């Protein structure tokens, strides 16, 4: 839905360019595939939460061309990304790097899961003395024959 406002901005754009254009595609399919993978992790820096791979913005097109230029120049994927970060800053990365500034972001989920897990274990470890044994199959069958109309358990 964020694209809604984006396209509002493109009101004065004569033609609607859309994501990767045929003219941008690299001839070598292997290199093109790499370009696509890299593009999907890079943000179009003038858009709201769009990758350069899917964005219609002119800047995104320039950025896509830049990625392909670097690939053609023989850069590895990491070098291409590093080049883009040099030019556009960390903002360009849709998958932020693990730095002290993003520790909370990256390790927060694990922390929550572990803390929650500790609470769950404590809840379960409450004295279970009066927890009855599960019914045996015989007892279950007998119960079924007693309560044939109400055999749901959820």
């Amino acid at each position, binding site marked *: 839905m964020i694209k809604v406002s984006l396209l509002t901005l493109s009101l004065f754009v004569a033609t609607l360019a859309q*994501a990767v254009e045929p003219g941008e595609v690299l001839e070598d399919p292997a290199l093109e595939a790499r370009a696509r993978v890299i593009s999907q992790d890079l943000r179009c820096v003038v858009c709201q*939460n769009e990758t350069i791979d899917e964005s219609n913005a002119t800047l995104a097109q320039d950025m896509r061309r830049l990625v392909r230029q670097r690939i053609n120049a023989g850069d590895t994927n990491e070098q291409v990304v590093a080049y883009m970060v040099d030019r556009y800053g960390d903002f360009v990365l849709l998958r932020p790097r693990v730095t002290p500034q993003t520790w909370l972001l990256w390790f927060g*989920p694990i922390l929550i899961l572990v803390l929650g897990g500790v609470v*769950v274990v404590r809840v379960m470890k409450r004295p279970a003395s009066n927890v009855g044994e599960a019914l045996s199959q015989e007892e279950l069958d007998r119960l079924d024959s007693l309560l*044939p109309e109400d055999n749901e358990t959820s």
Partner: protein
Amino acid sequence: MTPEFGHFALALALPVALVQSCIPLIGAQRRDAALMAVAGPAAMAQMLLIGLAFATLTQAFITSDFSVVNVFQNSHTAKPLLYKISGVWGNHEGSLLLWVFILAVFGATVAAFGNNLPDRLKARALSVQGMIGVGFLAFILFTSNPFLRLDPVPVQGEGLNPLLQDPGLAFHPPMLYLGYVGFSMAFSFAVAALLEGRVDAAWARWVRPWTLAAWSFLTVGIGLGSWWAYYELGWGGWWFWDPVENASFIPWLTGTALLHSAIVVEKREALKSWTILLAIITFSLSLLGTFLVRSGILTSVHAFASDPTRGVFILALLAITVGGSLTLYAIRAPKLEQGGLFAPISREGGLLINNLFLATAAATVLLGTLYPLIAEAFELGKLSVGAPYFNTVFIPLMVPLAILMGIGPMLTWKRGDLRGILSRVKAALAAVALVFGVALLLSGFSVTDVAGAAGMGLAAWLAVATLTEWSGRVRLFKAPIDESWRRATSLRRASYGMTMAHIGMAVLIAGVSGSSAWKQENILTMVPGDSVTVAGFDITLNGADVIRGANYESLQGNFTATRGGNAVTLTPERRVYDQPVQQTTEAAIHTTFWADLYVVLGDGPDESGRYVVRAYFEPFVPFLWYGILMMGFGGLISLSDRKHRVGAPRTSDTVAAAAGA
């Protein structure tokens, strides 16, 4: 009806809401039946007044009354009727009015059909509903009035954003709001129970139908949004981890957890205070979702600050609701009685772990969505958090959840028998091996293929394990077939709802995995007569014509796609709307049961008559929609169970009948 009439009705609804929030509360405290009885009529009056306001605004939109600023800014005489109506909620002011209208309808429903509710619980719950109403009505009246007038009256309106002129998006907001606001009922009952100091099985039985209804609507609402993005945005994506999407997905996750923990309260009177907390959190996140979208804070902290009146109001409203309810919770929750005990391996244990994963997933999505704002506020640098982050952290949380989902329903209450269950999942394990193997053989052995095949295996696991659980209930192949039949027909609808929703989840997992792994695309330029092959479809461009629609002009491409002798015609469009002047793409989608062929007409023709064409093969995308529909439908089946009928606690008659049979 003049707009002032609607404005007046809305202004009148505010004092009514104030009365509804104060008088019954005092009545419940003093055990004064007369004061408590005010709640019902007040809730009814509120629904009527807000309904009048809503009807007035709708009428202004239908008749294109451009003297109303809101209509002028969001409508146009040439717009089809459906989009004149959906334009009512296609803007900030109108969508808030819809929100508060749904709130009032739900409140009136409790007032009208809640005769079996304990008087004090009912009075308190309606009072809390009234308070929410007060907050929203004040917000609308003081900062976002949809009835403001214009002078002089413009001859024509500015039109509605063409992207919103679409059937999927016309019904997306009402569905979402039915979900959000439905959770307000769980919230009101939770706060009422805290005031009461008492949570029991009867309480859970009251909250579950509201939660189920809210959850079903929210599921379908999110699905509609995703479907719209898929066919409208023109490149075949269906989920972007966009902050706006996340805003609705987070309450869905906690709402799903609430749905399950309320079962434990109802059946075993355990997890009471956690369930209350979840009800509070889910509605708070719904509020947060509404406001994140409405306030513009997601674009940037600065966009938020550009409209300080609304921003401050929103913050205050959130702070009072969340802060107030959590404070009450902190004071009262420790006094709630602890319910039934259970062993770690038991239905309760399984549901608790389900809650752990769902709550963690919700917290994760919330963290990722707000992190750029947090980083900006604390000057940690300008960061982006997008799909690659969410996929990395979210999928590892969902996989164990889906595995547990297969066996959870097989566990018995209090103490389950894991060994017995392991012997029951043989069929599911065999299905995993089979599906995984076949998927690998058909696709290949790259990393993506293996991931896709693993996702398919997970879907097979969940589907077969869910069916195994059902066949165990009806003792399929273990008892004579007529007995199984009898059992199948006497099984509770709630149980069928669960089976349906869980299989829906399996289908959804298949859709997510398959479409992510095996999408194919071809981006090229074509002149009429050219052909291209995508996933076995031969696609030929026959030509393109300019056609005229109700309020747009369209370049409509004509393609023929053939596979195995069957030919279909595909007509993707590129539209330019008259007002506002804006382009949209309308993809042409040919759907088979398994997959979609998705063709988009891009730029062109250039000087040599070439068009840019994008052709995608989208395998398993239809499974997303099947899965979502099955989940929503499962919720509704469960809702139709007689024990969930509004206010139908089991009477002594039915208990006697069950015991005597």
